[in-house]
């Protein structure tokens, strides 16, 4: 499997995700935002960070960069695209995913481990997880409060496009287990074709027992299959 990680000025989880991909046997290349050519890849990852300082709106400026046209082209032709954190914000700014990420309801940056529940495991990203499996994954964001219109929300539910929801350690999805105010506790969504996943939690931070747990490993091992 070949992967490409897009690096914007201000990306700061690019090294972390590259390391995770390599550890999981991807043949990875880093692609600088000023490039107009994307190496042939099975998976494109837009990493976390603060592209362009997150100035104006998170992801807005990156959504207008040169390389992003190539990412859109590849995505439309079926290439797998994973956007993590800032990457998710960028995907919504480009229109590859619908909806938007608002400021956290407490108006503060949040970094902590939260529980999320797997809602759909019939995708290239999640096949190694069980339905309803509870993962403990780190979040680190200012704008992770997912919001979308009611029509799209209905579609997300009907077509099983919600990847993960925030929950408590027993799997309860409610207000107490919602860290940032996201609508219906949504932590990650797919596009209609399920070749694009945007998620706020950082799976690349959860592959090393020494620093955390290994709940993120199966996302990458799903992809490598």
């Amino acid at each position, binding site marked *: 499997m070949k992967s490409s990680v897009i690096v914007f000025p201000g990306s700061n989880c690019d090294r972390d995700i590259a390391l995770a991909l390599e550890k999981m046997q991807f043949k990875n290349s880093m692609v600088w935002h000023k490039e107009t050519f994307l190496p042939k890849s099975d998976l494109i990852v837009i990493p976390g960070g603060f592209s*362009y*300082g997150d*100035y*104006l709106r998170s992801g807005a*400026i990156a959504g*207008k960069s040169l390389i992003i046209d190539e990412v859109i082209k590849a995505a439309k032709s079926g290439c797998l695209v994973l956007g993590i954190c800032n990457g998710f914000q960028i995907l919504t700014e480009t229109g590859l995913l619908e909806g938007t990420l608002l400021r956290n309801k407490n108006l503060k940056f949040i970094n902590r481990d939260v529980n999320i529940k797997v809602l759909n495991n019939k995708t290239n990203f999640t096949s190694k997880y069980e339905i309803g499996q509870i993962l403990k994954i780190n979040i680190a964001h200012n704008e992770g409060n997912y919001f979308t219109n009611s029509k799209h929300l209905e579609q997300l539910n009907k077509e099983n496009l919600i990847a993960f929801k925030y929950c408590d350690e027993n799997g309860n999805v409610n207000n107490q287990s919602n860290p940032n105010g996201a609508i219906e506790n949504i932590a990650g969504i797919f596009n209609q074709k399920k070749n694009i996943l945007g998620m706020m939690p950082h799976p690349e931070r959860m592959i090393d027992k020494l620093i955390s747990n290994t709940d993120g490993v199966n996302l990458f091992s799903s992809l490598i299959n």
Partner: protein
Amino acid sequence: MKFSVTVTLKKDVLDPQGKVVENTLDNLGFKNLKSIRQGKFFEIEINENDQEKAKNTVKEMCEKLLVNLIIEDYKINKL
């Protein structure tokens, strides 16, 4: 009575956000763009009929909370 308050960074204070937006618009082909400064906008409604008094209240709000006079300027307009 309704007022608008526009808060901008003082002329000589660095505006990182404005700078990045400016560069991006330039890259998008807006070559006649000269400069951009980013700011904040408030709409404030006051229960008060005396315009002078109301404006003074808004001014006080600005100086006590909405504006950091060390780095920001503000303008009040009646709507």
